[in-house]
């Protein structure tokens, strides 16, 4: 059924990393449903940066131009990506008039321990003041992200104008699939942006990447390189220091823990690893986004998990294939279905 209503995306197109990749994939997926007008905000958060290359490529593919700094965005459905981009300002710089505003919460509202991750009230308040809409929804990107929203709303009553979508606005994971190695070895790796939040304490890193492993490849290790960290058994590469294909050829497992004070809201890097045919080992909260596709372990248990899979290549292969199958739940088609369920009424499509 073809939507009759208009769709507008509002995004700061200079968003780095996974969020821009997610928005790019959404735009490509939605092209099959209806035209989307993409409004570009220039927030203070990304001052001086260029448009993310993956987003630029998607827009070029679709033949879309960004509409920069429109004073008003008016559409039947407006999707605002990542309210946290407003955290360094007091006004979004745009007025939004819509039947349904969906705000996709790419960043968790709360950090582990319930500390607020950014000034959520400030950012939502800006959107409240800037929007004329009968319906405003927060769209979590994963189960953990959803829980953070619910907990935050519990702790910050009086946000009655906001509802939470009943299903996740997940990242599309359409990465090409690779077959698992028939003879996996204890070759471990992790890749991420180099931010401090992405890395656990050094003691945890030492547990996850021990000297007895055949390989320990850490991509995005800029801070370790800068600090001159002495770990001869680690291969350290700066962010984008290796092509991802090259990196995945060097490892058979992805071991991914983050700073205890931070959690991935979705964990796109893990989806990349699963698609590349690598088992992902991580903590329970982070693994929740992938519904069993990632192996749950504590840092102390990593050695045993890897030893078990290295010793049983068939189990290794079965796990990867099952994980990739679960990743199919994050396909473009699945996203379109989810999109229409959430946004259909606003754009004239019955749910």
């Amino acid at each position, binding site marked *: 059924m073809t939507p009759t209503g208009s769709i507008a995306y509002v995004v700061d197109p200079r968003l780095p990393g996974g969020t821009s990749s997610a928005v790019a994939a959404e735009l490509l997926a939605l092209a099959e449903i209806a035209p989307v007008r993409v409004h570009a905000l220039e927030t203070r958060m990304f001052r001086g940066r260029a448009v993310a290359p993956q987003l630029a490529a998607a827009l070029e593919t679709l033949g879309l131009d960004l509409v920069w700094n429109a004073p008003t965005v008016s559409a039947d459905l407006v999707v605002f990506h990542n309210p946290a981009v407003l*955290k*360094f300002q007091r006004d979004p710089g745009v007025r939004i008039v819509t039947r349904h505003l969906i705000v996709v919460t790419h960043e968790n509202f709360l*950090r582990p*321990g319930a*500390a*607020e*991750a*950014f*000034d959520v*009230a*400030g950012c939502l308040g800006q959107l409240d003041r800037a929007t004329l809409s009968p319906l405003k929804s927060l769209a979590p990107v994963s189960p953990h992200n959803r829980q953070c929203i619910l907990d935050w709303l519990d702790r910050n009553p009086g946000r009655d104008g906001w509802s939470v979508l009943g299903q996740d606005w997940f990242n599309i994971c359409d990465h090409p699939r690779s077959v698992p190695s028939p003879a996996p070895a204890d070759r471990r790796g992790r890749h991420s942006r180099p*931010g*401090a*939040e992405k890395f*656990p*304490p*050094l003691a945890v890193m030492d547990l996850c990447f021990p000297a007895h492993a055949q390989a320990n490849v850490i991509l995005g290790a800029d*801070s370790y390189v*800068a*600090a001159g960290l002495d770990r001869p058994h680690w291969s350290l590469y700066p962010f984008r220091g290796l092509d991802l294909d090259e990196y995945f050829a060097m490892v058979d497992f992805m071991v991914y823990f983050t*700073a*205890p*004070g*931070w959690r991935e809201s979705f964990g796109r890097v893990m989806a990349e690893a699963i698609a590349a045919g690598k088992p992902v080992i991580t903590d329970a909260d982070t693994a929740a986004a992938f519904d069993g596709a990632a192996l749950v372990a504590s840092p102390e248990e990593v050695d045993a998990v890897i030893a078990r899979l290295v010793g049983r290549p068939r189990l290794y292969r079965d796990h990867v294939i099952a994980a990739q199958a679960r990743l199919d739940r994050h396909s473009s088609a699945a996203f379109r279905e989810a999109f229409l369920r959430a946004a259909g009424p606003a754009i004239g499509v019955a749910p």
Partner: protein
Amino acid sequence: MILIDAGERSDHAFDAKLLMAMQLGERGHRVAIDATTRPADLDRSHRYQAAPFLADPADLAMSRVLVIGAEALSPETLQGLAGYRLGADVPVTLTGRFADRQAAIGARTKAAYVLGREPQVIDLADLQKSPLLPASPLPALACAHPATKRTRPEVFLCLPAESLEDPATLAAIGALDYLPEFGLTLVLAGKGRELLRMTRHAHLRAFGASELPPATLAAMADAAAFLGEDVGGERMAAFAADLMQAGGAVIDATAGAALAATGAPALRGPQDLAALGNFLVHTVLPNRHEIGRQTQASPWLKSHSIKRFEEALDLQAPSGRTAAASSQRVLFVPTNGVGLGHAQRCLQVAQEMADPAACAFAAFPSCLPMIEAQGLACLPLVSKSPSHHEEYANDLVNYLRLRRHAARGSTLVFDGGYVFDSIYRTILERALNGVWIRRGLWQPGQIHGAALEREKVFRQVIIPDEAFDELNADYTYGRHISHVGPILRRDADGPGEATEAGALTREDLAERFGLACRELLVTMLGAGVAADRTAQMQLLCSIAERRAGCLHLIVVWPGASVPPAVYGWKNSRVVRTRRTLALCRAADLAVSAAGYNAFHEILYHQVPAIFVPQTASFMDDQERRARAASGRGLAETVMAHELLQMEREVRAFLDDGKAARIREALATSALPQPGNAAAARLIERSMTDGR
């Protein structure tokens, strides 16, 4: 141990850390700063101030980490926090003036990532609604300090350097300095002190704005007037707040009422220096006690006090600070050169003190045996060495030792020519009763303002006079200057001296050295530091060699270097001893340098002597001293290069009766009374008098 860090790595942030460390240190907390965060080009003054706090975090048992200026957390600071590998029980507190809620959350979040746990965050805007410096990372300002008793109020004038470029400014300050109602001290920002030194007002008592801890300045002041466009930076703001806390009067004479406009308890004063004198004399000083009382009761001051900050941190101030402050001791610090002469003079004074047991010494290792032989404790100081990586490295260590050793309010007696930073700072920072024993007869090139500028920190200057009036001159003036007779070892009166002076006989020496001793020649030409006297020693050895029964003793201090060539003579022996006086008294002739101690001992103990003055530029004017004696027929003077004259004079003394004539002249000459006891009385008086 509380480790203090700052959000940014910059000179400004380091100074803020240092101020914070000083404030908490004053409260008795044990605080440290990561030594690796010290800016490489830190100036000398800051190096001294930072030295007590710098440490390698790996060596510390940290009880807390305090990060000030956390509104701007640099990657270097975050990396540092991660590198400290803090235990889970070590609280980390971030303080800052956060622009908004997001800024506070951002700081907390960044720190949480590297720490692996949540830090405590204190927004200073919640504690201090109207700070003196809104952009300052420094959390607290007012640090309580015990008030110092003074007989005359001290007024500090805080000025920006550029104000001195107006000739009218210095003229007005010069006039203020003559008002008898108060003592005047300038606190000059930037290059102010250098500018002042180049003017005819260089004699004015002045400190640089960052030269001393603000609390030290506050302890010296009863009132302070701030002039210029604003407060003048964090140190001046801290000084103002410290003074308020101590009950002093703070006068806001800034153009924009920078202090008073914040609600701080500062009196609005005239911006015109010409009016300031009357304002001080007729308004402020007569009411200063009431002003102080009201200042201390100010709610603003309470919210800007270190105590309030401690409460926010849930930090208990350690007790026991006042106990240390009440102990009274006299610490003698003889330095300069190897320090033996200075130490010997101090020992003579210490022995005259009413309670010698309350006296202790801090001295170079060369002096330790001599001091300890008198039953006095001695803290070893570090001598200068070419092996040190910077010229004042030893003095930095000495500063730390003295600072640790000197109890607040006790007495430090310095004997030396140059007031090292270690002495200067310890006296000021520990609010010590500083006494300077400063012998005169400086060479003309040594008498200048810079050398005497630090006299301002001494409550009492004692000048041991020369034996002859024409050698006594005043380089500075004031009620704090006192002259006493020559300080010297006295015959048989001092401990140990009776045995020394009385026991040595020719027979003893003959037996000791295995040589006949019908004639005794004693040479004391120095340790070779000021000049090479090898030729003169060789000459005297050769003279002794030709005289049958002549024992020639080359007497040097223990540890002195002696040219190897002198060991080859049959009649000459090298003697390393402190018992120089006993040997001189036994001698038929002493050939000696004309240093203060040796010269006066030779005269007062009637020893026939030929003086060979040292003429190095850093020494006293020994030639004038020697010629004053020889001109009166009480000795002979031979310059170092006059070798033939030396030979003739030795013959005249030993063969032609000159030694006997001089001994007789010395016996009948009227020399001034020794000043040992008078110096001790002056020190004791300074301990009970206010400034």
